[in-house]
Protein backbone atom coordinates (compact mmCIF):
# COMPACT_ATOMS: atom_id res chain seq x y z
CA UNK A 1 0.00 0.00 0.00
CA UNK A 2 2.71 2.42 1.08
CA UNK A 3 4.54 2.03 -2.22
CA UNK A 4 1.55 2.94 -4.33
CA UNK A 5 0.76 6.03 -2.26
CA UNK A 6 4.31 7.27 -2.76
CA UNK A 7 4.00 6.60 -6.47
CA UNK A 8 0.78 8.60 -6.58
CA UNK A 9 2.27 11.55 -4.74
CA UNK A 10 5.25 11.52 -7.05
CA UNK A 11 3.10 11.53 -10.17
CA UNK A 12 0.89 14.37 -8.90
CA UNK A 13 4.01 16.41 -8.16
CA UNK A 14 5.28 15.91 -11.69
CA UNK A 15 1.97 16.90 -13.26
CA UNK A 16 1.72 20.04 -11.15
CA UNK A 17 5.20 21.24 -11.94
CA UNK A 18 4.79 20.66 -15.66
CA UNK A 19 1.78 23.01 -15.72
CA UNK A 20 2.93 25.31 -12.99
CA UNK A 21 1.96 28.42 -14.92
CA UNK A 22 -1.52 27.17 -15.84
CA UNK A 23 -4.48 28.89 -14.21
CA UNK A 24 -7.16 26.46 -12.99
CA UNK A 25 -10.74 27.05 -14.23
CA UNK A 26 -11.90 28.08 -10.75
CA UNK A 27 -8.97 30.51 -10.35
CA UNK A 28 -9.50 32.61 -13.48
CA UNK A 29 -10.09 36.26 -12.63
CA UNK A 30 -12.63 38.13 -14.71
CA UNK A 31 -12.74 41.88 -14.99
CA UNK A 32 -16.01 43.01 -16.61
CA UNK A 33 -16.05 39.69 -18.42
CA UNK A 34 -12.48 40.02 -19.70
CA UNK A 35 -9.43 37.99 -18.63
CA UNK A 36 -6.18 39.94 -18.84
CA UNK A 37 -3.73 37.19 -18.04
CA UNK A 38 -2.87 34.33 -20.37
CA UNK A 39 -4.13 31.06 -18.90
CA UNK A 40 -0.81 29.35 -19.67
CA UNK A 41 1.86 31.95 -20.29
CA UNK A 42 2.45 30.24 -23.65
CA UNK A 43 1.42 32.24 -26.74
CA UNK A 44 -1.61 30.78 -28.54
CA UNK A 45 -1.21 29.15 -31.95
CA UNK A 46 -3.80 30.59 -34.37
CA UNK A 47 -3.62 27.58 -36.71
CA UNK A 48 -4.51 25.22 -33.89
CA UNK A 49 -7.19 27.71 -32.87
CA UNK A 50 -8.79 27.56 -36.32
CA UNK A 51 -8.97 23.77 -36.06
CA UNK A 52 -10.59 23.95 -32.65
CA UNK A 53 -13.17 26.51 -33.82
CA UNK A 54 -14.15 24.31 -36.79
CA UNK A 55 -13.96 20.85 -35.27
CA UNK A 56 -17.10 19.14 -34.10
CA UNK A 57 -15.04 17.22 -31.56
CA UNK A 58 -13.36 20.31 -30.08
CA UNK A 59 -14.84 23.80 -29.83
CA UNK A 60 -17.51 23.30 -32.48
CA UNK A 61 -17.97 27.06 -32.45
CA UNK A 62 -19.31 26.86 -36.02
CA UNK A 63 -22.35 24.99 -34.65
CA UNK A 64 -23.57 28.42 -33.61
CA UNK A 65 -21.35 30.94 -35.42
CA UNK A 66 -20.52 31.61 -39.04
CA UNK A 67 -16.85 32.20 -39.83
CA UNK A 68 -16.32 33.24 -43.46
CA UNK A 69 -12.59 32.67 -43.08
CA UNK A 70 -13.32 28.92 -42.81
CA UNK A 71 -15.17 28.34 -46.11
CA UNK A 72 -14.33 24.62 -46.18
CA UNK A 73 -16.50 23.97 -43.18
CA UNK A 74 -19.99 23.16 -44.41
CA UNK A 75 -23.05 23.87 -42.31
CA UNK A 76 -22.19 26.81 -40.11
CA UNK A 77 -24.77 27.79 -37.55
CA UNK A 78 -26.60 31.05 -37.03
CA UNK A 79 -27.37 31.05 -33.33
CA UNK A 80 -24.76 33.65 -32.37
CA UNK A 81 -23.28 36.58 -34.34
CA UNK A 82 -20.84 35.80 -37.18
CA UNK A 83 -17.29 35.83 -35.83
CA UNK A 84 -16.02 37.83 -38.80
CA UNK A 85 -14.27 40.92 -37.45
CA UNK A 86 -14.26 39.63 -33.85
CA UNK A 87 -10.59 40.61 -33.64
CA UNK A 88 -11.54 44.23 -34.38
CA UNK A 89 -14.49 44.37 -32.02
CA UNK A 90 -12.84 42.81 -28.99
CA UNK A 91 -9.46 43.01 -27.28
CA UNK A 92 -7.48 39.86 -26.59
CA UNK A 93 -8.48 39.98 -22.92
CA UNK A 94 -12.15 40.30 -23.84
CA UNK A 95 -11.92 37.43 -26.31
CA UNK A 96 -10.26 35.27 -23.64
CA UNK A 97 -13.07 36.08 -21.22
CA UNK A 98 -15.78 35.37 -23.80
CA UNK A 99 -14.32 32.02 -24.79
CA UNK A 100 -13.52 30.96 -21.22
CA UNK A 101 -16.92 31.92 -19.80
CA UNK A 102 -19.18 34.01 -22.04
CA UNK A 103 -21.87 34.18 -19.37
CA UNK A 104 -19.91 36.82 -17.51
CA UNK A 105 -19.71 39.19 -20.51
CA UNK A 106 -23.19 38.31 -21.82
CA UNK A 107 -25.52 37.51 -18.95
CA UNK A 108 -27.73 34.50 -19.60
CA UNK A 109 -26.20 33.83 -23.01
CA UNK A 110 -26.73 30.48 -24.69
CA UNK A 111 -23.00 30.22 -25.40
CA UNK A 112 -21.39 27.39 -23.40
CA UNK A 113 -18.58 28.17 -20.96
CA UNK A 114 -15.47 26.51 -22.34
CA UNK A 115 -13.18 26.90 -19.34
CA UNK A 116 -15.21 25.82 -16.38
CA UNK A 117 -15.40 22.48 -14.59
CA UNK A 118 -17.89 22.93 -11.77
CA UNK A 119 -21.45 24.15 -11.23
CA UNK A 120 -23.20 22.01 -13.84
CA UNK A 121 -26.65 20.45 -13.49
CA UNK A 122 -26.47 16.70 -14.23
CA UNK A 123 -23.17 16.86 -16.09
CA UNK A 124 -22.63 13.90 -18.39
CA UNK A 125 -19.62 11.90 -19.52
CA UNK A 126 -19.17 13.64 -22.87
CA UNK A 127 -22.04 12.64 -25.20
CA UNK A 128 -22.76 9.21 -23.70
CA UNK A 129 -25.78 10.31 -21.67
CA UNK A 130 -24.13 8.70 -18.63
CA UNK A 131 -23.19 10.64 -15.50
CA UNK A 132 -19.85 12.42 -15.53
CA UNK A 133 -17.12 10.86 -13.41
CA UNK A 134 -14.08 12.43 -11.77
CA UNK A 135 -12.40 12.88 -15.15
CA UNK A 136 -14.75 15.79 -15.92
CA UNK A 137 -12.63 18.70 -17.07
CA UNK A 138 -13.35 21.96 -18.90
CA UNK A 139 -14.62 21.71 -22.51
CA UNK A 140 -11.30 23.08 -23.75
CA UNK A 141 -7.89 23.00 -22.08
CA UNK A 142 -6.12 26.20 -21.04
CA UNK A 143 -3.81 26.06 -24.05
CA UNK A 144 -6.72 25.36 -26.41
CA UNK A 145 -8.43 28.52 -25.08
CA UNK A 146 -5.24 30.48 -25.82
CA UNK A 147 -5.11 28.98 -29.33
CA UNK A 148 -8.74 29.96 -30.02
CA UNK A 149 -8.14 33.49 -28.70
CA UNK A 150 -5.08 33.81 -30.95
CA UNK A 151 -7.19 32.72 -33.93
CA UNK A 152 -10.09 35.07 -33.14
CA UNK A 153 -7.61 37.95 -32.92
CA UNK A 154 -6.75 37.32 -36.60
CA UNK A 155 -10.40 37.81 -37.67
CA UNK A 156 -10.26 41.43 -38.84
CA UNK A 157 -12.70 43.10 -41.20
Amino acid at each position, binding site marked *: MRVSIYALVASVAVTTSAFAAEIEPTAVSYNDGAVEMSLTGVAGNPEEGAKIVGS*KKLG*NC*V*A*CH*EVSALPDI*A*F*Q*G*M*IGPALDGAGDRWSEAELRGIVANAKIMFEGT*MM*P*SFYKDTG*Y*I*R*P*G*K*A*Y*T*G*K*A*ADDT*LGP*LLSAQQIEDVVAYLATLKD
Partner: protein
Amino acid sequence: MNKFTKGLGACMTAMIVASGALADPADDTLVINDEIEIVTRTAAPAHLSDALDEVMSGWLFRGAETRDMERDDFDNAGMIFVEKAEDAWNTADGSAGKSCADCHGESTEMAGVRPVYPKYVEAAGEVRTLEMQINDCRENRMGAEKWKYTGGDMVNMTALISSVSRGMPVNITTDGPAQSTWEQGKEIYYTRFGQLELSCANCHEDNYGNMIRADHLSQGQINGFPTYRLKNAKLNSAHARFKGCVRDTRAETFNPGSPEFVALEMYVGSRGNGLSVEGPSVRN
Protein backbone atom coordinates in the same frame (compact mmCIF):
# COMPACT_ATOMS: atom_id res chain seq x y z
CA MET B 1 -42.51 50.63 -51.15
CA ASN B 2 -40.03 53.16 -52.52
CA LYS B 3 -37.04 52.33 -54.68
CA PHE B 4 -34.62 52.53 -51.83
CA THR B 5 -36.35 50.08 -49.53
CA LYS B 6 -37.02 47.76 -52.44
CA GLY B 7 -33.35 47.78 -53.31
CA LEU B 8 -32.48 47.12 -49.72
CA GLY B 9 -34.93 44.24 -49.54
CA ALA B 10 -33.53 42.65 -52.67
CA CYS B 11 -30.01 43.04 -51.41
CA MET B 12 -30.87 41.45 -48.09
CA THR B 13 -32.56 38.53 -49.83
CA ALA B 14 -29.46 38.08 -51.93
CA MET B 15 -27.33 38.02 -48.81
CA ILE B 16 -29.49 35.43 -47.12
CA VAL B 17 -29.55 33.20 -50.18
CA ALA B 18 -25.80 33.57 -50.64
CA SER B 19 -25.10 32.45 -47.10
CA GLY B 20 -27.31 29.42 -47.63
CA ALA B 21 -29.03 30.12 -44.35
CA LEU B 22 -32.59 30.59 -45.53
CA ALA B 23 -34.24 28.88 -42.65
CA ASP B 24 -37.75 30.12 -42.09
CA PRO B 25 -40.43 27.51 -41.52
CA ALA B 26 -41.93 26.40 -44.84
CA ASP B 27 -44.92 28.26 -46.22
CA ASP B 28 -46.89 25.07 -46.82
CA THR B 29 -50.03 23.24 -45.77
CA LEU B 30 -50.51 19.59 -44.93
CA VAL B 31 -53.47 17.48 -45.98
CA ILE B 32 -52.93 13.74 -45.53
CA ASN B 33 -54.44 11.33 -48.09
CA ASP B 34 -56.29 14.30 -49.61
CA GLU B 35 -58.67 14.21 -46.67
CA ILE B 36 -57.15 14.76 -43.22
CA GLU B 37 -56.44 18.46 -42.73
CA ILE B 38 -53.54 19.00 -40.37
CA VAL B 39 -53.17 22.26 -38.43
CA THR B 40 -49.40 22.83 -38.57
CA ARG B 41 -49.41 26.36 -37.17
CA THR B 42 -51.84 28.09 -34.85
CA ALA B 43 -52.03 30.66 -32.06
CA ALA B 44 -50.04 29.63 -28.99
CA PRO B 45 -52.10 28.30 -26.07
CA ALA B 46 -52.75 30.88 -23.32
CA HIS B 47 -50.18 29.42 -20.93
CA LEU B 48 -47.45 30.13 -23.51
CA SER B 49 -48.53 33.58 -24.58
CA ASP B 50 -45.64 35.39 -22.88
CA ALA B 51 -43.13 33.16 -24.70
CA LEU B 52 -44.58 32.47 -28.16
CA ASP B 53 -47.24 33.95 -30.44
CA GLU B 54 -47.58 30.93 -32.64
CA VAL B 55 -46.93 27.23 -32.28
CA MET B 56 -45.70 25.23 -35.25
CA SER B 57 -45.32 21.60 -36.11
CA GLY B 58 -41.84 20.26 -36.77
CA TRP B 59 -43.18 19.33 -40.22
CA LEU B 60 -42.78 22.97 -41.32
CA PHE B 61 -39.06 22.85 -40.57
CA ARG B 62 -38.27 19.84 -42.74
CA GLY B 63 -37.29 19.90 -46.42
CA ALA B 64 -39.81 19.59 -49.25
CA GLU B 65 -39.07 15.90 -49.89
CA THR B 66 -39.48 14.93 -46.27
CA ARG B 67 -42.68 16.97 -46.03
CA ASP B 68 -44.10 15.25 -49.10
CA MET B 69 -43.64 11.79 -47.56
CA GLU B 70 -46.21 12.69 -44.95
CA ARG B 71 -48.92 13.70 -47.40
CA ASP B 72 -49.85 10.16 -48.31
CA ASP B 73 -49.88 6.99 -46.23
CA PHE B 74 -48.28 5.04 -49.07
CA ASP B 75 -45.24 7.32 -48.88
CA ASN B 76 -45.13 7.44 -45.08
CA ALA B 77 -42.91 4.56 -43.95
CA GLY B 78 -44.29 4.99 -40.44
CA MET B 79 -47.57 3.49 -41.65
CA ILE B 80 -45.89 0.10 -42.16
CA PHE B 81 -45.47 -0.03 -38.39
CA VAL B 82 -49.06 1.04 -37.88
CA GLU B 83 -50.09 -2.03 -39.87
CA LYS B 84 -47.95 -4.23 -37.68
CA ALA B 85 -49.64 -2.76 -34.63
CA GLU B 86 -53.04 -3.40 -36.20
CA ASP B 87 -52.14 -7.11 -36.25
CA ALA B 88 -51.05 -6.95 -32.63
CA TRP B 89 -54.28 -5.12 -31.77
CA ASN B 90 -56.30 -8.06 -33.00
CA THR B 91 -54.08 -10.84 -31.61
CA ALA B 92 -54.74 -12.41 -28.21
CA ASP B 93 -51.79 -12.39 -25.84
CA GLY B 94 -51.21 -13.29 -22.18
CA SER B 95 -52.89 -15.56 -19.64
CA ALA B 96 -56.35 -14.02 -20.12
CA GLY B 97 -56.31 -14.98 -23.79
CA LYS B 98 -57.52 -11.55 -24.85
CA SER B 99 -56.58 -9.07 -27.54
CA CYS B 100 -56.93 -5.27 -27.37
CA ALA B 101 -59.87 -5.66 -29.77
CA ASP B 102 -61.70 -7.96 -27.35
CA CYS B 103 -62.12 -5.09 -24.90
CA HIS B 104 -61.94 -2.03 -27.14
CA GLY B 105 -63.39 -3.10 -30.50
CA GLU B 106 -61.87 -1.70 -33.70
CA SER B 107 -58.69 0.32 -33.37
CA THR B 108 -60.61 3.32 -34.72
CA GLU B 109 -62.49 3.32 -31.40
CA MET B 110 -59.31 4.88 -30.00
CA ALA B 111 -59.95 8.13 -31.93
CA GLY B 112 -59.78 11.00 -29.44
CA VAL B 113 -57.42 9.25 -27.02
CA ARG B 114 -54.02 10.48 -28.24
CA PRO B 115 -54.89 14.23 -28.11
CA VAL B 116 -55.41 14.25 -24.34
CA TYR B 117 -52.40 12.19 -23.22
CA PRO B 118 -50.50 12.41 -20.93
CA LYS B 119 -53.35 12.98 -18.50
CA TYR B 120 -54.29 12.46 -14.89
CA VAL B 121 -55.98 9.07 -14.64
CA GLU B 122 -58.45 9.17 -11.79
CA ALA B 123 -58.54 5.40 -11.19
CA ALA B 124 -54.76 5.22 -11.01
CA GLY B 125 -54.31 8.41 -9.03
CA GLU B 126 -51.42 9.53 -11.24
CA VAL B 127 -50.49 11.19 -14.52
CA ARG B 128 -50.06 8.58 -17.21
CA THR B 129 -48.69 8.47 -20.71
CA LEU B 130 -50.22 6.35 -23.44
CA GLU B 131 -47.38 3.88 -22.97
CA MET B 132 -48.23 3.51 -19.27
CA GLN B 133 -51.88 2.86 -20.11
CA ILE B 134 -50.98 0.28 -22.73
CA ASN B 135 -48.76 -1.57 -20.29
CA ASP B 136 -51.46 -1.38 -17.63
CA CYS B 137 -53.84 -3.15 -20.00
CA ARG B 138 -51.22 -5.72 -20.88
CA GLU B 139 -50.32 -6.54 -17.30
CA ASN B 140 -53.63 -6.24 -15.53
CA ARG B 141 -56.27 -7.08 -18.13
CA MET B 142 -54.45 -9.42 -20.49
CA GLY B 143 -52.03 -11.06 -18.11
CA ALA B 144 -49.30 -10.35 -20.66
CA GLU B 145 -45.72 -9.15 -20.29
CA LYS B 146 -45.16 -5.42 -20.21
CA TRP B 147 -43.60 -3.99 -23.33
CA LYS B 148 -40.30 -2.12 -23.15
CA TYR B 149 -41.10 1.59 -22.94
CA THR B 150 -39.40 2.58 -26.18
CA GLY B 151 -39.35 -0.89 -27.77
CA GLY B 152 -40.74 -1.66 -31.22
CA ASP B 153 -44.05 -3.23 -30.09
CA MET B 154 -44.81 -0.26 -27.88
CA VAL B 155 -43.85 2.46 -30.35
CA ASN B 156 -45.83 0.74 -33.09
CA MET B 157 -48.93 0.57 -30.89
CA THR B 158 -48.68 4.26 -29.98
CA ALA B 159 -48.38 4.99 -33.72
CA LEU B 160 -51.61 3.09 -34.39
CA ILE B 161 -53.44 4.87 -31.59
CA SER B 162 -52.11 8.21 -32.80
CA SER B 163 -52.95 7.54 -36.46
CA VAL B 164 -56.67 7.22 -35.76
CA SER B 165 -56.66 10.69 -34.15
CA ARG B 166 -54.81 12.47 -36.93
CA GLY B 167 -56.29 15.90 -37.54
CA MET B 168 -57.74 16.22 -34.05
CA PRO B 169 -56.34 19.06 -31.92
CA VAL B 170 -53.89 18.25 -29.13
CA ASN B 171 -55.71 19.12 -25.92
CA ILE B 172 -53.71 18.35 -22.81
CA THR B 173 -55.16 19.46 -19.50
CA THR B 174 -52.67 21.49 -17.49
CA ASP B 175 -54.63 22.25 -14.34
CA GLY B 176 -56.50 20.28 -11.68
CA PRO B 177 -54.76 17.18 -10.33
CA ALA B 178 -52.29 17.25 -13.26
CA GLN B 179 -50.98 20.69 -12.45
CA SER B 180 -48.05 19.74 -10.22
CA THR B 181 -46.76 17.29 -12.83
CA TRP B 182 -47.15 19.95 -15.51
CA GLU B 183 -45.21 22.45 -13.36
CA GLN B 184 -42.45 19.88 -12.88
CA GLY B 185 -42.25 19.40 -16.64
CA LYS B 186 -42.05 23.15 -17.16
CA GLU B 187 -39.22 23.40 -14.65
CA ILE B 188 -37.30 20.70 -16.56
CA TYR B 189 -37.99 22.45 -19.89
CA TYR B 190 -36.27 25.62 -18.70
CA THR B 191 -33.37 24.00 -16.81
CA ARG B 192 -29.96 24.37 -18.44
CA PHE B 193 -28.64 20.83 -18.18
CA GLY B 194 -25.25 19.34 -18.83
CA GLN B 195 -21.81 20.65 -19.51
CA LEU B 196 -23.12 22.75 -22.41
CA GLU B 197 -25.71 24.24 -20.03
CA LEU B 198 -28.54 24.22 -22.55
CA SER B 199 -32.26 24.01 -21.84
CA CYS B 200 -34.96 22.84 -24.22
CA ALA B 201 -35.99 26.51 -24.43
CA ASN B 202 -32.51 27.65 -25.55
CA CYS B 203 -32.88 25.64 -28.73
CA HIS B 204 -36.62 25.26 -29.30
CA GLU B 205 -38.09 28.50 -27.93
CA ASP B 206 -35.33 31.06 -28.48
CA ASN B 207 -33.84 29.67 -31.69
CA TYR B 208 -36.42 27.78 -33.71
CA GLY B 209 -35.95 28.60 -37.37
CA ASN B 210 -32.19 28.99 -36.89
CA MET B 211 -29.56 26.54 -38.04
CA ILE B 212 -27.48 24.85 -35.37
CA ARG B 213 -24.70 23.40 -37.49
CA ALA B 214 -26.54 21.27 -40.09
CA ASP B 215 -29.83 21.11 -38.20
CA HIS B 216 -32.79 23.39 -38.75
CA LEU B 217 -34.22 23.94 -35.29
CA SER B 218 -37.96 23.47 -34.88
CA GLN B 219 -40.05 24.24 -31.81
CA GLY B 220 -39.50 20.67 -30.60
CA GLN B 221 -43.23 19.93 -30.65
CA ILE B 222 -44.44 16.37 -30.05
CA ASN B 223 -47.78 16.47 -31.90
CA GLY B 224 -46.12 14.38 -34.64
CA PHE B 225 -44.93 11.56 -32.40
CA PRO B 226 -44.03 8.85 -32.84
CA THR B 227 -41.95 10.02 -35.79
CA TYR B 228 -40.48 7.91 -38.53
CA ARG B 229 -36.93 9.23 -38.87
CA LEU B 230 -35.08 8.78 -42.14
CA LYS B 231 -31.90 8.86 -40.06
CA ASN B 232 -32.57 5.57 -38.26
CA ALA B 233 -35.39 4.19 -40.44
CA LYS B 234 -37.73 3.39 -37.56
CA LEU B 235 -40.37 4.95 -35.39
CA ASN B 236 -39.07 7.06 -32.51
CA SER B 237 -40.98 7.82 -29.34
CA ALA B 238 -41.04 11.24 -27.69
CA HIS B 239 -39.03 9.97 -24.71
CA ALA B 240 -36.32 8.59 -27.00
CA ARG B 241 -36.13 12.03 -28.63
CA PHE B 242 -35.97 13.77 -25.25
CA LYS B 243 -33.16 11.45 -24.26
CA GLY B 244 -31.20 12.29 -27.40
CA CYS B 245 -31.65 16.02 -26.93
CA VAL B 246 -30.58 15.89 -23.27
CA ARG B 247 -27.58 13.73 -24.17
CA ASP B 248 -26.55 16.35 -26.72
CA THR B 249 -26.14 18.91 -23.95
CA ARG B 250 -23.43 16.66 -22.48
CA ALA B 251 -25.76 15.81 -19.61
CA GLU B 252 -26.68 12.68 -17.73
CA THR B 253 -30.05 11.87 -19.31
CA PHE B 254 -33.25 10.73 -17.65
CA ASN B 255 -34.65 7.34 -18.59
CA PRO B 256 -37.59 6.87 -20.95
CA GLY B 257 -40.66 6.29 -18.80
CA SER B 258 -39.11 8.05 -15.78
CA PRO B 259 -41.29 10.45 -13.78
CA GLU B 260 -39.16 13.32 -15.10
CA PHE B 261 -39.83 12.46 -18.76
CA VAL B 262 -43.53 11.79 -18.07
CA ALA B 263 -43.76 15.30 -16.63
CA LEU B 264 -41.73 16.75 -19.50
CA GLU B 265 -43.98 15.02 -22.02
CA MET B 266 -47.04 16.49 -20.36
CA TYR B 267 -45.55 19.98 -20.47
CA VAL B 268 -44.10 19.80 -23.99
CA GLY B 269 -47.32 18.21 -25.23
CA SER B 270 -49.33 21.11 -23.80
CA ARG B 271 -47.13 23.59 -25.66
CA GLY B 272 -48.65 22.07 -28.78
CA ASN B 273 -52.27 22.38 -27.67
CA GLY B 274 -54.20 23.38 -30.80
CA LEU B 275 -51.86 21.71 -33.29
CA SER B 276 -53.23 18.57 -34.92
CA VAL B 277 -52.22 15.10 -33.89
CA GLU B 278 -49.94 14.12 -36.76
CA GLY B 279 -48.25 10.85 -35.74
CA PRO B 280 -46.77 8.85 -37.19
CA SER B 281 -44.99 11.77 -38.85
CA VAL B 282 -41.89 11.74 -41.03
CA ARG B 283 -38.73 13.60 -40.03
CA ASN B 284 -35.07 13.43 -40.98
